[in-house]
C-alpha cells in the first residue's frame, strides 16, 4: 500500500518511487491492453484471428483490413457524420450556454428564476426518458435523417450554463463599470471582455461535449433510417458478426479502432485544458 502515500521521502535509497513507477506502468499496461489487443486483431488475417491463442504481435494485414472495412461500411461517410454531430453539439451547447449565462448574470429581468430552473430541470431529462416523444416531435418537424434532427434535440446544456454562470459571477463589477464608462454595450462587453477570458472553460467544455456528441448511440439510432446518415458508433455496431455470419473480427476491430481514434485524440490533445477547466470550476 506504499503506493497510496501522497508524498515521497527524499534520498537515494527511496524505494517507494520505484514501486509507484512500477505500479503505474503495470496499471497503464492493464488499462491499455483491450485497446492493444483490438489493434493487434485488426492487423491480422482471418486465419490468424481464429487460431487460438492469437499472436499478440501486430501482423501485416493492417492496410488491407482497414481498406476493406472502410469501403464495406462507408466509413468515410460515418466518420463525417459523427464529426458533424460532435462539433455541432459541442459548439451549439457552448454557444447557447454562454448566451444564457450572460443573460442570467448581467441582466435583471422578470422571469429570471423561471428561466434558470427550466434549464436546471433538463439535467433530469436524459435522452432515454423522453425518447418516444422526442422522436415524434422530430418526425413531425420532418427532421428524421437530417443533421438538424441528430443535433438540435441534444444541445440544451444545464452543465455548461452553470459553469459559465459560475465563472461570470467572479468577474469584478469594476470591469463591467469600466466597460460601461467606455461606452461599450452588453454585446460588446460579451464579445471583447468575457469571451477572450473564457478560453479555459470553453476548451474544457469542448472536450466534454465533443465526447458526449461523438459517443451518442440511442438518439442517432432512432433519429436516422438511412445508412447515409448513420454515425460511426452506430454503424460499427452493425458489423459485429451474429449467428451465421463469418467471424471477421479483424474487420470489426479495424472499424472499432477508426471509431475510437478521433475522440481519444481530442482527449489527449486537450487533456490539459480538460483537467484544469474542471477543477478550477468545480471547486
Amino acid at each position, binding site marked *: 500500500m506504499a503506493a497510496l502515500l501522497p508524498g515521497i521521502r527524499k534520498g537515494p535509497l527511496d524505494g517507494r518511487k520505484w514501486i509507484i513507477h512500477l505500479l503505474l506502468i503495470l496499471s497503464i499496461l492493464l488499462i491499455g491492453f483491450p485497446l492493444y489487443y483490438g489493434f493487434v486483431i485488426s492487423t491480422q488475417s482471418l486465419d490468424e484471428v481464429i487460431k487460438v491463442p492469437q499472436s499478440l504481435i501486430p501482423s501485416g494485414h493492417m492496410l488491407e483490413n482497414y481498406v476493406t472495412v472502410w469501403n464495406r461500411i462507408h466509413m468515410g461517410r460515418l466518420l463525417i457524420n459523427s464529426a458533424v454531430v460532435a462539433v455541432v453539439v459541442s459548439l451549439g451547447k457552448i454557444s447557447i450556454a454562454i448566451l444564457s449565462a450572460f443573460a442570467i448574470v448581467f441582466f435583471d429581468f422578470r422571469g429570471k428564476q423561471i428561466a434558470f430552473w427550466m434549464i436546471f430541470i433538463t*439535467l433530469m431529462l436524459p435522452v432515454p426518458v423522453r425518447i418516444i416523444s422526442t422522436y415524434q*416531435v422530430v418526425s413531425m418537424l420532418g427532421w428524421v435523417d437530417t443533421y438538424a434532427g441528430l443535433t438540435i434535440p441534444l444541445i440544451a446544456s444545464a452543465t455548461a450554463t452553470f459553469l459559465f454562470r459560475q465563472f461570470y459571477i467572479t468577474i469584478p463589477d469594476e470591469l463591467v463599470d469600466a466597460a460601461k464608462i467606455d461606452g461599450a454595450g452588453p454585446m460588446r462587453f460579451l464579445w471583447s471582455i468575457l469571451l477572450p477570458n473564457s478560453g479555459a472553460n470553453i476548451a474544457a467544455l469542448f472536450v466534454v461535449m465533443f465526447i458526449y456528441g461523438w459517443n451518442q448511440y440511442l438518439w442517432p439510432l432512432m433519429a436516422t433510417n438511412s445508412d447515409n446518415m448513420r454515425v460511426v458508433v452506430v454503424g460499427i455496431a452493425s458489423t459485429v458478426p451474429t449467428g451465421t455470419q463469418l467471424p471477421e473480427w479483424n474487420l470489426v476491430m479495424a472499424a472499432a479502432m477508426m471509431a475510437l481514434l478521433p475522440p481519444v485524440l481530442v482527449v489527449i490533445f486537450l487533456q490539459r485544458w480538460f483537467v484544469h477547466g474542471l477543477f478550477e470550476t468545480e471547486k
Partner: protein
Amino acid sequence: MKRSIFRNRWLPYLLLAPQLVVVVVFFFWPAFDSLRLSFFKVAPFGDREIFVGLGNFMELLTAPEYGRSVVHSFVFSLGVTALALVTSLFLANLANQKIRGLPFYRTAILWTYGIAPPVSGIIWLFIFHPSYGVLTYLLSMVTTYEFNWLLKGWVAMLLVIFAAAWAHLGYNVAFFLAGLQTIPESVIEAARVDGAGGFKLFRWITFPLLSPVTFFLFLMNMVFSFFETFGIIHAVTQGGPGDTTTIMVYKAYVDGFVNLRMGYSAAQSVILMALVIVLTVLQFRYTERKVTY
C-alpha cells in the same frame, strides 16, 4: 449576486431564447407527452389511444420481467460504479505522486475518457468471445468451467460491466485528480509529522477529504450506468442471454420501438424519470457542487 448590470428590456430574453426553445420543444414537451402517454394504451401503427389510468403502471408492477430488469439495472450499475470508482481512486492516487514522467502517466490513463461505450463493448465482446477471446483462452488453461457469455447470464453481466467501467475510467480519474489537488499540502505534512504514512494516511486523511468527490462520482457513475450504457447492451448482448442483461433503459426501448407498446414504454420512461430526479436531487443536496441562486 452582482450589483453591476446592464439595463435592457428585451436583450436578456433574446439571449435566453435559443436555449429555452430547445428546452421546451425537445425536453419539456416530450417529457410531458411521455407522462401523458403513460396513462394510455396506443394501438400499434394507429393513432388510437385508449385511456387506461394507472393500468400500464399496474402491469409493470406485476410483470416479473420488469422486476427482473430493475434488479439487472441495479446489479449492473452498482457493479460498474464499484469497479470504476475503486480502480480510478487507486489510479488517481498513483498519478498524484511527485514523480518524474507524470504528464505521460496521466495521459496514459486519461485517454480512456474518449472511448465510446459501444466501442468498448465490442472490444470486450471479443476478449470474452467463447471461441477466440483471450480471456476465455486464459481461463480455459486453469479451469474446465465453461466461461461462455452466450450461455451464462452472469458472464454476460460481467462482460457489460467491464465494458462500461473501462469506458468511464478516464472521467473518474479526472475528477479524483481534481479533488486530490484541492487537498492542501500542509494537511498531508501535518499528518506525516504525526506519524501517519502509507495506507494510514490514505485511510484517515486523503480518503475522508475526498469523500465529497467520491459521493459526487458515485451518483454520476450511477447516472452513467443507468442512462448512457444503452449502446453497450444494444451492440453486444441485446439484453441476453435470456433477459439477464436487460436493463431498464433497454427494456423501455424494446417495448416501445420493437414491441410497439408506446404507452407501456412511456410508463417505464416515467419511472426512469423519477429515478433520475432522485439522483439529481441527492447530487445537489449533498455535494459541494451546489447551485446557489
